[in-house]
Each structure stands twice: as structure tokens, then as C-alpha cells.
């Protein structure tokens, strides 16, 4: 290497080629790894899962049903007057994830939410009569003790966010489409 061109700092052309070659190899390895990493993302057929339409007529006031959308449970609750009142009153309570009840429903009578606890993904209890509904009259997650209110908002426990509201529209007064 004695004959290679050398500048004042003792850096040779060969040093530059070494650094450039290593850098190019790292970039190349990264590019080659991407298709492998990306192959683990949801496949096209999974993404294409259609939306779900639900007929609401059989649901009585104060009753809840659970439907499956994209492999996840969706809670649909026809709330009683008292529950709606309570949810609105709680707008002023101290909420870990501030949100108005009015922003969580399209029609106050119908609460539609993804029934998955925002903590670690368990299904909260409170859908069936007789199940514990937590200290705020909504839902209670038995896994790590998160309490949700009558608007599905987190009130106490480790969950960071309110129960998620999926995209849905009312096709008519008694039918909704989720997704």
C-alpha cells in the first residue's frame, strides 16, 4: 500500500473503496431483507376482507350483540335512556382519554365499538346479562382490570384508550354497515 495515493491525513484511496464497499453492502442487505420483512404483513386476501352489514331490528333497548368484523368482535349496544344520560353526564368527569359521548355515536341510542380492550387485547365483559360491567356501568376487562363506562370510555385500569369506534354507516334506520 506504500505506492497508493495518500493525502495529508494518511487516508488512502483504498480506505475510501473499503468504506464505500461496506456501505453499499449494508444498503444492499437492507434492500434484500425488505421483501422478507414485508411478506409478514397482512396478505392481499386478508386485506380484501369485506365489510359487514348488520340488521338491528331484533335488538331490544338495553340489549347488546357481538358481531365479527375482520376477525374482531364488534359490540353493538342499544343503550337505555339512563345509560345515555349517564354517558353525557360523564363527559365532565375526569377521563384518561378525553372524548365526548356525542363524538362516539352517530345515533345516541346505538353504541358501536370494537370489543377489544385497548390494554392487551382481551374481550371485555358486560355484553351478556349477569356479566360484571365494572364500576362505571359499561364494560369490565377481566384480564387486567380495566373499567369502561356506558360510552365505552376508559375510566380506571391500565388501558390507555377508549374502546375503538370502527368506521360504520347507517344504511337505513335499522341496518348498519361496518367497514
Amino acid at each position, binding site marked *: 500500500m506504500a505506492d497508493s495515493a495518500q493525502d495529508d491525513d494518511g487516508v488512502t484511496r483504498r480506505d475510501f473503496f473499503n468504506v464505500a464497499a461496506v456501505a453499499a453492502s449494508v444498503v444492499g442487505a437492507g434492500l434484500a431483507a425488505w421483501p422478507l420483512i414485508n411478506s409478514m404483513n397482512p396478505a392481499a386476501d386478508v386485506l380484501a376482507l369485506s365489510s359487514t352489514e348488520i340488521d338491528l331490528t331484533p335488538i331490544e333497548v338495553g340489549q347488546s350483540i357481538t358481531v365479527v368484523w*375482520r*376477525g374482531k368482535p364488534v359490540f353493538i349496544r342499544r343503550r337505555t335512556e339512563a345509560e345515555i344520560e349517564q354517558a353525557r353526564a360523564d363527559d365532565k368527569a375526569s377521563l384518561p382519554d378525553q372524548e365526548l359521548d356525542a363524538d362516539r355515536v352517530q345515533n345516541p341510542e346505538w353504541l358501536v365499538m370494537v370489543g377489544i380492550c385497548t390494554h392487551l*387485547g382481551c374481550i371485555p365483559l358486560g355484553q351478556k346479562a349477569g356479566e360484571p360491567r365494572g364500576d362505571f356501568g359499561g364494560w369490565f376487562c377481566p384480564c387486567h382490570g380495566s373499567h369502561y363506562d356506558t360510552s365505552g370510555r376508559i375510566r380506571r385500569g391500565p388501558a390507555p384508550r377508549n374502546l375503538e369506534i370502527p368506521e360504520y354507516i347507517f344504511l337505513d334506520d335499522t341496518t348498519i354497515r361496518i367497514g
Partner: protein
Amino acid sequence: MAGAPNREYKNSLVRWIEYRLPIFSLLDHTIGRDYPTPKNLNYWWSLGAVLTIALIIQIITGIFLAMYYVPTAEGAFDSVERIMRDVNSGWMIRYIHSNGAALFFAAVYIHILRGMYYGSYKRPRELLWFIGIIIFILMMATAFMGYVLPWGQMSFWAATVITNLFSAIPWVGDSITIWLWGGFSVGSATLQRFYSLHYVLPFVIFGATIVHIWAIHVHGPNNPKGISVKGPQDTIPYHPYFTTKYMVVFGIFFIALAFLVFYEPNYLNHSDQFKRANPLVTPANIVPEWYFLPFYAILRSIPDKLMGVVAFGGSLMILFILPWVDTSRVRSGAFRPVFKQFFWIFVADVILLGYIGSQPPAGALLIIGRLATVYYFAHFIIILPLVGWMERPKPLPESIAEPVLKGEGGQ
């Protein structure tokens, strides 16, 4: 792997092979006649060999289970039931695999605690300790994914809860979780990738084990006195002395395994595992396998999701700083009267966390769990550095050989 010079082998075939590929001298230097070992090693030093055997049992039984297992959400549960009922000896192979995993963890916990008591992580064995922690984390990942494969209720919900830990990462958490799942919830795609990884990770563990053993041989194993080997008078060959001594522990291991497999095969199992996975019903109380309970208790004791996950990861990662937070220059706990007491309090704390992890998170237990979590971290961050500075250790013996030759025994 230094030691005695290569011996001349008597058997001519062995000599022929040795000349071309020195595999016999490699074995002799690694676990045989030419591996000089501190003469005072006690039974707690057998766990490394026990763990190697446990890993091999898991790999062999796993290979045969894989011949019948169907890794799809539709087929997994039924294929496991078929292994249990119809496949010849299938029940035994599966029970050895599932109970073998439990004993594997029992052995690794004793192995880790032995290292903590005798200061095996201290200079110059820090990297040996690091490789061990990496193996432990790989074991946890492998065991977790293996637990998901039967696709029972606990499988499904364990997978859901643990993969959801990643959703706590700010900004990218949800994308990472969907990427891990290969869908919008735990499903067939998740099960199949877990199967793929559950098959390959044990071989990664095997490779890491070889590096672990390599690292042991650079400076030789630590020993109950925690003082370095000073010469040949301090050592005896690994074979036949320790190979035979450790046979006793191998026997205990196999008796325990046989007892579980043939008398209490489901003692460590959960009744919800006999139900098919149902994505719409969460079991009333999700409980992980016993060997994850202390860490699970730490996760649950923190009321904030992100901080809970950080504490959960931190409770493992903190093992990496052990060589530096332990400020004492004395390795072995046998000569550290104050450390010794705190060591056993720490063990009690971990057992307490394990109990709390098995109970529903409410009331007084929640408070106790939080205190126990604080103590867990305080042991590393506060107690160990202070004890190292303030404690007055007992005088160390001159050499390993000295007390042995005086007839004081190898306590």
C-alpha cells in the same frame, strides 16, 4: 481451549480420524479428560449439563410432534388431539415435550440463581453472562410460541396479550402488531409463523449454547469459592470426576420428568387449554405458564400500558447490568454475609411475584405486587451497589486447593 497436550489415542480408527479431524481431542478438551475443572464444584454446577440434555430432549420430541402437527387455525387443535389419542406413543411424546419445557425452565432458573449467588457474572465472565441472558430470552420466546401451537383458549389469549405488548410502542405500535399477526387479529397467519419460528429457534439456542460453552472455556468455570484457579493443584479433569458426579442430578431430572409425564401430566397445564381457541370469549383469568409468572406480575403491577411493557422488558434487561451494579470485588456469596441475606430476600421476592402473577389483579395483591416490583428493581439498582461498598467480606482462602487439602470440605 487450552489444557493438557493432545494425547495419543490407542484405537487406530480414532487415531486415523483424529489426524484428519481432531474431534476427539476437541471433546476431551471441552467436556472430557483434558478439561481441567476447579476441584470444588458443587452440585449446583451440574445445571449447565442438565440444560443441554433438556434442550436435546425438546428438540428430539419436537421433531416427532412436527410430523403430525397441523399449523392452521382450523387444524391445530384437532391435530394435537389426534397426537394424544391416535398416534402411537403420541401422548407420551407430547407430555415429555410439554413437561420437559417446564423442567427446562426450572433448571435454567436454578442455573441463573447459582450464577447470581456465586458472582459468576463478574470479570472476566461478563460476556459469558450476556450470552446466557440471550439464551434465556430466546428460551422464553420459543416456549411462548410453542404454547400457542395447540390453539387452545389459553394459547390464543396468551398470543393476543403478548403480541399486544408491542402495540404500546409509541407511533408505530399498531403497525408492528399487525405485522406480527399477519392480519388484524391473532389468526392462522400468526399461528403458522409461530410454528416456523418455534421450529427454528431451538437450533439458534443450540448454537448460542456452543458459544456459551466456548466462553466458559476461556477462563474456566467459576467455583463456589469464587477465587481463580492458580495452578494444576486446584483442578481435576472434568471426566470422569464431574461427569459421574452430575449423573446424580441427571437422575433426579429424569425422575422428575417421568413423575410428571406418567403421574401428573397436566398438573402444570390449564383447564382452558382443553377448549378450542375462541376469539370472541376471553377466559375469566388469563394466566401464563408458571415460569413466566414473576415477569407477568411486573407487567400487570404498573397501571400504565407503555410503562408496564417497559418494566416487563426492563426486568429482563436489567440482568445485563449486573456485572457493574454489583460493586463487590468478592465473587462468591459464601464470603459475603450481607449480600447473602439480600440474595435470599430477592429469591423470596421473585417467588412472591410469581404467586401474585397467578392471582387476579385486585385489592391488596395489587399493592403487594407493586411493592414487590419496586423491590425487584431496587435489588439491582440500589441494594447491590450499596452492599458492595459497605459490606466487609469474610477473608478469602489462599487457593481452591488449600481448604480442600486441610480437610475443611468444599462448602
